[in-house]
Each structure stands twice: as C-alpha cells, then as structure tokens.
C-alpha cells in the first residue's frame, strides 16, 4: 500500500495529476470510503487500499472528467471493464485519467462476516494487501474470531473475470486468483426451477427491496443523468414499494437498460442493504447474450458494438424462448 501512496505522491509532485481518486480509511477499520486526495499529507494520513476497498471508482471518473487536470484513479481489474465501458459511452474522458491498475486478492464483504454470527466488530486483521489473505482475525466486543478470507469474500470475487487490467497506464501490486465458482451456476440453478418456484424465489427476494436505489446509483452502467424512474418520460416515476409489481418493473428495466453494457462488476449486490442478489438479473442477460449472440464481455474494449446495438440476419427468434419449456 505504501508503494501506492509513494507513486501517487510522485505523480502529484511532478504534475502528472492534480488529484488522486482512491480510498480513505474508515473510522471502523472496515468501512473505507472513496475519496479524492490532493496533497501528499492527505495521502499519508488517510489513504488505504485493502480487502475492504470493494468500491468501484470508475463511476466517480464521470465527475472527475469534468474537472480541470488529470485525476489519478486506482482501478482494480474488474473496475477497468467498467471504465472501458464508460469510455465507449463517452461518459468519461480517457485523457483526464491516469490509471493505476491495482492488484486484487479478492474483496471482503463485512455483511458476510456478520452473517457468520460475528457481532460487535471492532477491527479486522489480515485484510491488507501485504497479507497472505487466508485468514482474517476479527476483533470484536465479544472476543476475537478467526474467519476464512475466502468465505468472507464478495460473491463476485468467487466468479472473478480474471485479474488482468483491461486498461491502465501502469499496474501495481500482486493479485491472487480467487475464482472458485462458475459464473452462471446460480443463474442455471434458477433456470432449472419450475415457473412457480422461480416466481416465488424472486418474489421473496424482491419483497425485501426498499427502492433505495443504491444498486442503481452505484452502478457504473447506470450513469444516466436522470433515470427513467425519476423522470416523467414514461410515467413510471416511483419511489416506493407500494406494490410488488413496482420493484419487478424497476429491476427488470434496470437490468434491461444495462444489458450488454453491464460488466458484471457486482457492485449492485455488494451495496444492497437488504442483500438482494441483484447480479442474478444482470447475469441472466449476460448468459442469454452469450448463448444467443456469442460470448460478449462488456468493457473488454472501448470499440466493439454492444449486443443490443448489433444484430445478424440469422439471430434467434424470440420463439426460442416463448416456445420452450
């Protein structure tokens, strides 16, 4: 981590960048926040990069692109897909970004640790990039607990797309392969359910939704200035879960709007206060796109046409869906 700070200070000092977009230490040791740093002092005292720095900073570059001067941004391998996609959509300015691709050993989910019954967490040791990332020692109000790093990882890290940075000016820190599950296994499990089981599954999950919009607002693909659900354009501006249909409409359309653009960064699931596995929507579209139109990974580059702005004469007919099962 110190290497990141040193390099950032260098780049600030030589004028390459005028600010640094990274993560700032939280007050609890596991709640860092995205932050801008403009001085060496600030970097020294507040900068952090460890297992809890899950936040994808690429979306912040939309605002940073409007500012004068270059911003140094730290992007994890999965964040670089989002950044590419944002370049493709003219939402960020590549020229305004100096990208340091940072290694990733899998990001941690404090909610998972809590779900293991660990209460009153004061600090977590073993989350730093220098550690082996095998075991976490959780100090709590009620004694110390040992937790497996892998078990405490975010879902997305278990189905990691790989630790290659898709775009970066330089790459720092070692990564660790964390993929140990099939990306579409969960989707396939649902697909195998009967229609009623599927319906009940999603009904239950979406019954938790409070329409807080965290999934949407954190999503680098949901970069609309004003979401259709906040505007009058479709007469669908709704904020509250009055009826179960509303959430369904919201989540289907949100997933549809990001279909072919979603890089599967997993931020939606990470931030959902109710723990709804929102990635199951996006990943279904990704799986279908792969199946129907050939494998496609959004954000692999900044040029390729997205699957929903593309076609072939011989594309499958919708009847492939409506007539099956």
């Amino acid at each position, binding site marked *: 981590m110190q290497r990141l700070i040193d390099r950032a200070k260098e780049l600030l000092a030589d004028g390459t960048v005028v600010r640094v977009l990274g993560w700032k230490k939280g007050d609890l040791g596991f709640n860092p926040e995205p932050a801008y740093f403009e001085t060496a002092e600030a970097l020294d005292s507040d900068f952090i990069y460890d297992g809890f720095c899950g936040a994808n900073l690429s979306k912040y570059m939309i605002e940073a692109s*409007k500012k004068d001067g270059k911003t140094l941004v730290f992007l994890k391998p999965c964040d670089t897909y989002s950044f590419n996609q944002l370049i493709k*959509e*003219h*939402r960020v300015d590549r020229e305004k970004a100096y990208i340091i691709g940072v290694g990733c050993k899998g990001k941690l989910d404090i909610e998972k640790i809590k779900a293991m019954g660990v209460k009153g967490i004061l600090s977590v040791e073993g989350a730093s990039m220098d550690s082996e990332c095998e075991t976490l020692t959780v100090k709590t109000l009620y004694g110390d607990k040992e937790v497996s790093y892998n078990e405490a990882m975010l879902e997305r890290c278990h189905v990691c797309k790989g630790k290659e940075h898709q775009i970066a000016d330089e790459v720092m820190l070692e990564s660790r392969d964390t993929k140990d599950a099939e990306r579409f296994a969960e989707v396939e499990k649902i697909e195998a359910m009967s229609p009623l089981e599927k319906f009940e599954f999603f009904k239950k999950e979406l019954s938790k939704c409070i329409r807080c919009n965290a999934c949407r607002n954190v999503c680098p693909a949901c*970069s*609309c*200035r*004003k*979401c*259709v659900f906040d*505007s*009058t*354009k*479709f*007469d669908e501006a709704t904020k509250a879960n009055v009826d179960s249909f509303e959430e369904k409409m919201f989540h289907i359309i949100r997933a549809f*709007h*990001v279909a072919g653009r979603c890089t599967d960064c997993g931020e939606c699931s990470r931030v959902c206060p109710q723990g709804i596995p929102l990635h199951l929507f996006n990943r279904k579209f990704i799986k279908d796109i792969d199946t129907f139109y050939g494998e496609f990974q959004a954000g692999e580059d900044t040029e390729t*046409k*997205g699957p*929903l*702005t593309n076609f072939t004469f011989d594309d499958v007919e919708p009847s492939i869906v409506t007539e099956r099962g």
Partner: protein
Amino acid sequence: MQRIGVFVCHCGSNIAATVDVKKVVEIISQEPGVAHCEDYQYMCSEAGQAKILEAVKEKNLSGIVVCSCSPRMHEGTFRKAAERAGLNPYMVEIANIREHCSWIHKDMEEATEKAVILARAAIAKVNLNAPLYPGESRVTKRALVIGGGIAGIQTALDIADAGYEVDIVEKTPSIGGRMSQLDKTFPTLDCSACILTPKMVEAAAHEKITIYTYSEVDKVTGFVGDFTVDIRKKARSIDMDKCTGCGVCQEKCPSKKTPSEFNRGLNTRSAIYTPFAQAIPNVPVIDREACIKFKTGKCGLCEKVCQAGAINYEQTDEIVTEKYGAIVVATGFDTIKLDNYDEYAYNQSPDVITSLELERVMNAAGPTKGHLERLSDGKHPEHIVFVQCVGSRCNDNRGKSYCSKICCMYTAKHAMLIRDKYPDVKVTVFYIDVRTPGKNFDEFYRRAVEEYGVNYIKGQVGKVAPQSDGSLLVQASDLLDNKQIKLKADMVVLATAIEPDPSVRRIATMLTASIDTNNFLTESHAKLRPVESPTAGIFLSGVCQGPKDIPETVAQAGAAAVKAIGLLAKDKLLTNPCTAKSDELLCNGCSVCANVCPYGAISYEVVQVNDHGIREDRRVARVNNALCQGCGACTVACPSGAMDLQGFSNRQIIAEVDAICR
C-alpha cells in the same frame, strides 16, 4: 387537457352493421376530455368532413378522434380536414373500428365494446398530441432505374422524355433483358428483337439516359428525394471508350466452352463475349472465371488482336456514387429451378426443355439457328408435348402458389408457330385451365386450336420417362375423358413458373422496400397504388412486382415513370414531422441512439446546458429531421428516455396501453 371531438363513422353498413355506433357515441360522450361526439354515415365524405369543421368551430375543439377505417386509408383525409378547420393536422388520431373491429367480429356486443376501447385508446393518445410541423427536404432531379429489361428501358425513356436525367443499372453486359431472349411475341407474333432493339438503341442514344451495364447497386442511403447510391461498375476488362465492337476478340478467344447465359446454356460462348449480336453497348466483357489469361496468366490473345487497344486486364471494379430523387425497381424475373420436378426428367433428358429455352431454339440466332430439332440428336421431332403450370399454381412447397400468367399465351404461341412452320409436327398441350384474359388473347388461343390443330388435353402430366430409343414417354391423365394416357413424344416443353430475379432480395433490403413471401416487391396499395412501393420514392416496374406479359409490363413501366416524374417535378418535399427528438437535459451523450440509427440522423455536439441552475457543457445528441424517418429504434435504445418520437411518444403509447388495459 384537450377538448376532443370524437366522430364515429358508420361507413355505410361496413361498421354500423356490427358496431352499435349510437352506443359508442353514448359511451364516448361521457369520457373525460370529450367535448363533442357524433356519428355519421360516411365521415370521409364532404358532408362528413364538414361536420368536423363545424364541430371544431362550435365547440372550440383542440383534438380530433375519428373512429372509422384504417388510418392507412383516411388518416390523410382527416388530417387535411382538421387543417381546414384551423387545427394542426397532427391533432388527429384514428381509431380503426372497421378493419380491426367491425369486419372481423360478428357479435355486436363484443364489437361495440371493442370499438369503445379503441376509441378510448385514441382519445388517450390525442390527449397527449402536440402540434407537429413538417420540415422540407430537397429533391434531386435524377432517377435511377434498376434493371435494363423492357420495363427498365421503357421507364427510363419515359422519364428521360419528360426532361429528367435517368441512369439505368443493368447487371448483365447488355440491356435488353428477358425480352431480348424471346423469338416472337404474342398475340401479334411480332419478332421480339424487331420491336425491342429500337427501344434499346433509343435509350442508349438518349441524352438524358446513362446506362451502366455489367453494374450493380452496391449501397443505398438517404430517402425519398435524396437517395445516394453507390453503383459498382464491375471490371469489364475492356476500355469502353476504345472498343469499336468489331468482334474479332470473340472470334479469336480460345476459351469457348462457357455455357451461354443468353442461350440458356444450350450452347457455349467465348470467355470474352457480348451476350448477343444486338447487345447494347456493343462492348464485350471478359468472363474472368473462364478466361485463360486470368486463370493461368498466359494467352492474352484478345489483347493482341484488338486493334483499338481496348483490352485492359488490370481494370478493377469502379464505384460510382450518384444522387437520385427517385428509384424505379425493374429487376424482372427468371424461371424457377426444376430440381424439385424429377418427374419431368428435365435434368435427365436434353429433349425436355423449358419454354424459354424453346424460344432460343426457335430463334435464328439461337443454338440451332432457328431449326426445330432435338437437342440430344439434332433430329427433327415428330411430336412435341407441352406441359403447362410447371411449378405454377402449386399447392405444395415445390413450386409457386401463384399463376405465372404468361404461360398459356406463350404456349399457344409456340404451338402455333411450330404448326405453322412444321405442319408435320404433332403438338399436344396438357393444361389445367387455359387462361386467356386480355385483348385478342382468347382469339389467339382459339386460332391455335382451330386453325393450327394443336391438341389441347385437360390433364396433368404425371411422368416423362426417357426411353431407350431416345423418345420420351409421357404419362398423363385426361381429365375430360377421365382416363390415364401414355404418349410417345420427341420433345417435351415445360411451361416453367417464373419468379422474381433472385437479386431482388438484396436490392429490396437496400431500398428498405418490402417484399412478399414470393419475393415479389410489395406495392403500396394493391389496387390504388400498384406501382409504388410503400417506401417513399421507390417505384415498381415490371415483373418484380408480379407476373406480367410485355404489354402490361410496358404499361406499368410508363405508370412507374409518371409517378417518378411526379416526384422529380417537385422542388421540395415536406418531411414527416414524426421524427425523433432528444431532450438535451436528459441526454447522456452515450451514443447508443446513433449506434442503432439506420439513417445516420443522429450526431453529437457539446452544448452548454442549464439544468435547473446547473450550467455545464454536455455532449448531447442532435437529430437531423431531414434524415430521421421516425422508426423509433433510438427511443428504445436510449435508457434515460431522453430520446422520444414525436407523434408516437413514450407517453402517448403508454396512454394507449393504459386505455386498452383499463
């Protein structure tokens, strides 16, 4: 909130017999926003339109709903009426209670209920209508004719004679088309070449006509009045300016084994060739697949013998880009492949031929120099059997469902010509029906039967079997005598179904002109707009639209020309105001809309916006109204809803959905 007037049309009894019009009026009068509601016998009549005018004035209406026939029928009529009443024409919506209601339902209660719902949907939509104003676009005073057969030639001549520039694009080395392959024409038995060649010459000589032979349309962009077309002039390997058409190269060419397209493969031609003697232009092309020079690099004989130095092996395809105001499709036809008709032994016996092949056999310039002889052994036939409806009027999927229209007449012609020239030859025709509507057609057919003794048998040929003695055994049913018959024949001529030239699919796609299941181009209205494609600025000439004989083709060619001239005569066109529009405050500048726009109508610019007090520079989408055709692809691609379609806005469609589902 609009003040809406609803007008319910009886359409005589067309609507009123199934829809309780009075009840519709009663219910709709109670709808919020409806300030006036009445019914009338024929809303489209002068008197009906007058009612609209009167109501707009008296009730100060701001929007109009007409419950009547399809908007494809009378939307224009009622828009004009609204305009006369002082309203914007786009404040009119039609509820289609005839085609989509009264005509398809029998139960009056159901139909009435549906009519009410359709009216409500239209009311809901018109409530959100806003005045729209058409823009203007220019008209390029030049027409493109695709296809250089008789249809294309005639269209081009008519347009050119009216004083407009016309280009003909013909994919083969010469104009002339199918008609140039015919020997004689019915019902007057004129020599085909004698009447066609002067037209070809006239076209070639016309100062307003440019002919691109051995060329194809590569790309079409733009829209009515302003098409841009890339024409690919295929490498002819001959310098057209230098060639004198002396023909020496063709004589000397050592590669003479290529089947002649012009003679339907019945004989061969050289690698450097003009398809036929009267070809226009009289400039050969080198068939690079057959040419020894191109295959091996050796030979080059033609270059040596050409005194004009016109041979150019280095020539490459050339793209000519030209702008047009109107495009006429005249791509013609071909006969269907007979691979599915093994029972006629077409692929097995050279003595089983198609009628078009018989034309070449009968023609003095054909493979037999006009002598009627068997192609297998050159013997003079004693008995020729004609089989009608081969692949036409077919109810399985081997052939075509439609009647090819020309076969009855040309078969009568063939039979008559043979009997006339070779009275010794016996001619039998198997037919399902003989169809001879047309001036002097039935008389022509009767002459064949009565004067020339052609033996017509109503019945179908089940099998043609080549015999060991070289003859053909024809097994057929005689439907009138209700018996199976077997005949020995020397030649069998198949009246093969015709189908649109296969190239038409690609062209239709480029032109965004619709095509039917048989690949015939669709006309805008089967009765009232038979030579216009539904795509504005595209006109149809000849068999590409449906089977026709020569007089009909020429008539339609003229009609298509008139329609094209009517368009070219205008200086400006009013553009459809139902175009996409982007709300710059909501636009993300993400380019997804431009990615799906088929017209390149969307561009981006950085503008300073004032978004509720926030001033910033933003990249936003701009729609070029002259280019936008209003498909709406962009509106769905746009995630934020910034892009909307005027006249079919998100909220309008949603309002219709709501009204229907409520």
